[in-house]
């Protein structure tokens, strides 16, 4: 067993070809709150991963869900941050268009949370995902991704243009959301 990531909320380990995401106990929270939150979030995350797949978005296959733990398929792909191109960005746009069309907001879209395997894009880490159909939630979701583009990729303007083409192709309300993204940018938050 190998620890591959340790975030604010969970520890992720790898066992053979299975990822184990365990939400860890927080000493500062009373036990009643802590257990309820960890249990609910674990359940929600697993549900949204499966629901996204039903909407045609490649995600890890869930193998087991217990109180504070999800066991899921390990996607042995290449993080997009290493290979991003305008064409791939357009494919990301298509992927997120489908996700939003399905009513899901990812909440943490970065080029590290999208993997390339078998000529397909996989979306991972639904830890902050939730169901929301508002322009604001969708706009923030995309804004966060564009910020990753800007901070880590030189040709970010081209990547953003390509994303928008793909997003408009799979999602009917794309124009409104893109309009909202501009507004969110001008507010200058969610850095």
């Amino acid at each position: 067993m190998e620890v591959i990531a340790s975030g604010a909320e969970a520890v992720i380990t790898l066992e053979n070809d299975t990822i184990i995401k365990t939400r860890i106990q927080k000493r500062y929270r009373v036990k009643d709150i802590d257990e309820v939150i960890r249990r609910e979030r674990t359940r929600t995350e697993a549900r949204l991963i499966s629901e996204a797949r039903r909407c045609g978005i490649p995600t890890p296959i869930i193998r087991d869900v217990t109180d504070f733990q999800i066991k899921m398929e390990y996607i042995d792909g290449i993080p997009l941050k290493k290979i991003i191109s305008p064409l791939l960005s357009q494919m990301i746009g298509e992927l997120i268009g489908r996700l939003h069309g399905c009513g899901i907001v990812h909440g943490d879209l970065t080029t590290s949370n999208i993997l390339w395997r078998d000529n397909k894009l996989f979306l991972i880490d639904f830890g902050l995902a939730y169901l929301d159909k508002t322009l604001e939630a969708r706009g923030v979701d995309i804004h966060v991704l564009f910020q990753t583009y800007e901070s880590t990729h030189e040709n970010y303007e081209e990547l953003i243009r390509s994303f928008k083409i793909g997003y408009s192709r799979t999602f009917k309300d794309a124009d409104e959301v893109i309009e909202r993204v501009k507004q969110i940018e001008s507010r200058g938050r969610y850095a």
Partner: protein
Amino acid sequence: MSDITILGLEGTAWNLSAAIVNEIDVVAETIAAYKPAAGGIHPREAAQHHANHINRIVRETLEKGGNTISAVAFSQGPGLGPCLRTVATAARALALSLDVPLIGVNHCLAHIEVGRWKTPAKDPVALYVSGANSQVLAYRMGHYRVFGETLDIGIGNALDKFARSVGLQHPGGPKVEELAKQAKRYVPLPYTVKGMDFSFSGLATAAQESSRKHDLSDVCYSFQETAFAMLVEVTERAIAHTGKDEVLLAGGVGANMRLRKMLAMMCEDRGVRFYVPERRFMGDNGVMIAYLGLLMYKAGSRTSISDSGVNPNYRPDEAEVIWR
């Protein structure tokens, strides 16, 4: 001795305060706090209070420490409109009569900067919690970015609102904290964190409902445990996200010992340092306004009279940080 001496005026809400600082320390400070006769802060009454006292507190502050003043700084926002306008008017008049520059400062950032001055914190994730404001901020590329914030009311107002509804006098926060110490058990209340943001309005209402069925001290305890856990969780997320290794607590609600203890625990578990300024620098105070004014003065910032209008919704991430 330092040459630059700034007079700062604070009066965004309940506390009217004037202070003089130089680069080394606080030179003088005078305060006049508004206490509502009943209920919470009434914006017009608070503004009237500020208008009644501002002459006196400025005069006393200047008598205590003001031989030469380099500039007058004031809270340009955010805050209650009538209060902001009263204090801004006084600041303009004072700058003109002393013939020195005027500097409008962001009230939220003043809370953080005074903390960086009066504690060893250098580049912290700041949890700023007061009556009207609840935000998690950190500096990045020319701005203090808001990483998470309340989607409705500030934690202080939530505590006050709940406290008033169960018959506790304003300000309710300290009374809730006292009662919580006698609690026997936790009563479930809604815990609302959405991504990096939190919400307190529903919690205050639920706590009010809950107090009809449960012991008041249990509800006070549960309110604190729930609300503070939300704040600490988002603060921890911001640390993980930014990779910073310090947490600074700012704002009046930072006086709460349970909140401090929870933050200290989280920081210890994550291996980051935790800083809390002296209490007089936590709630609204003139010192922080004077000190941010000093930083801005040194960086060459001046506010012309025509640009000195107040902004009750002045966001901390709008302010260009030229002093760091």
